[in-house]
């Protein structure tokens, strides 16, 4: 059964230096607040996993939390590059960043295999690309019935998966809807998990296209209103597109980024959320 705790307690209990951690979210429901708490608690040597690392991963990488990134597309969606990510790859600053690079189809299937208790997944992918030459975790497999050759990728089983959802009930059952990405698979693939939610409710009213994760499939639930900001939570608040644009300038400059980290460390998540909310409305 999932335990209802505070965000800082959850991160303190779940995320250890050296862990493989997936904060998933596909534009929608990205667990920014949890990422910030990992920076505040100064975790180091993490292997970060995500299909679409965007600015919260730029922040984690710039703050020196990560030694490796497993991903398929890293950018600031609709804006441009992730400058902290680029600087870590191109100049090893603040620490060198190893990368393991896949396609979306490959990453999605790696999570599916992890969620399914299988050691690998099979897909039509990578044929003829240079990814297949540079990434060690892409293999060829032959169909035992047709002889056809396909790609195989190993399961992803992160130590910790962190996602954001709209609601949980008091027993810890989790509900999300709208674009649900690969979050169910990430939680089921992981050894431990944290779900931050917009609110805890008495009863989960069913909604169309919902994904429900039963409480016994989740380790911790933490109530973190606006915990996805500047990403969005359908039914709660919109995506703060200005924030993504503003991030570009902060991220381009080591000093501006340093000030951002310093400010983050001096505030707790509730304050960040309120500030962000105000900024978002301004």
């Amino acid at each position: 059964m999932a335990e209802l705790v505070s965000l800082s307690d959850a991160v303190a209990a779940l995320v250890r230096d050296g862990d493989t951690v997936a904060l998933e979210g596909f534009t929608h429901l990205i667990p920014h607040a949890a990422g910030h708490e990992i920076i505040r608690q100064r975790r180091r040597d993490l292997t970060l996993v995500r299909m679409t690392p965007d600015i919260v991963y730029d922040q984690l990488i710039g703050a020196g939390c990560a030694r490796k990134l497993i991903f398929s597309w890293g950018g600031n969606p609709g804006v441009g590059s992730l400058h902290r990510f680029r600087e870590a790859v191109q100049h090893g600053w603040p620490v060198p960043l190893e990368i393991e690079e896949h396609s979306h189809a490959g990453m999605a299937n790696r999570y599916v295999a992890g969620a399914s208790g299988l050691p690998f997944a099979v897909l039509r992918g990578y044929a003829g690309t240079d990814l297949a030459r540079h990434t060690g975790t892409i293999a060829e497999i032959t169909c035992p019935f047709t002889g056809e050759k396909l790609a195989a990728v190993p399961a992803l089983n992160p130590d910790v998966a962190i996602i954001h959802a709209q609601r949980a009930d008091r027993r810890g059952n989790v509900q999300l809807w709208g674009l649900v990405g690969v979050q169910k698979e990430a939680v089921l693939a992981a050894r431990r998990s944290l779900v931050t939610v917009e609110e805890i409710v008495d009863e989960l009213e069913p909604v169309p296209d919902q994904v429900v994760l039963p409480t016994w499939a989740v380790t911790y639930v933490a109530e973190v209103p606006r915990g996805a900001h500047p990403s969005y939570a359908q039914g709660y608040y919109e995506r703060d597109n200005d924030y993504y644009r503003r991030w570009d300038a902060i991220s381009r400059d080591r000093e501006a980024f340093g000030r951002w980290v310093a400010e983050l460390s001096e505030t707790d998540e509730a304050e960040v959320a309120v500030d962000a909310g105000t900024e978002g409305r301004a």
Partner: protein
Amino acid sequence: MTAHQDYTSDEMMSIAAARALTGDRRCFVGIGLPSTAANVARRTHAPNLVLIYESGTLGSKPDRLPASIGDGILAETADAVISVPEVFNYWLQPGRIDVGFLGAAQLDRFGNINTTVIGDDYANPKVRLPGAGGAPEIAGSCGEVFVVVRQNRRTFVEQVDFVTSVGHGRAPGDRERLGLRGAGPTLVITDLGVLRPDPQTRELTLTQVHPGVTVEQAREATGWDLRVAPDLVTTEPPTERELAVLRELTAA
């Protein structure tokens, strides 16, 4: 550009891309130019176009341009909302999608695409780009691929530094040999004109220039010795309706 053109070359590019989308075809749409083009097409000549976004929507009908690939409007207006693994496994991989749209940081003579690194050392790149995303499997599995990209010598190169997504490989028959099911890039739409693969050699060939663009300009903007189709045509300029729809969408 002639002085009295009242549209930009990017607008011409978007509209040329929109025109290539017809009927009730299923289009796998990325954010930016492809999404703009698909939505212009849906509001003008192709109201039954089916838009599929990799964030997990089938049949999205946004009433404004989505700001990101995961904009809430895409889920709210979709026929079906599905998980990201399902998009790739049940819908893209089996070849259910007619047209995939791709952009490129580099595009080579045979339509191969690089969105990973610039420079010849993957471990120490000159520029680190966002990476593959859905592109390798879009390029492999869609019925055909349209590339939309601004044409210049930095982008249009003899050979890409890194093959993120296979176009036509290095020679005819390469796609079949690799087991790639779709036809690959059949159309490259730029701010200067349109390129298509030569039916024999698979080399990208200039088949169309936009109004006011010369063949010489297109060749100048290309990093290989660009061939020109004997029956080169000039793009019809944007109609008032097309421009109005495009501007309404991008202003919103």
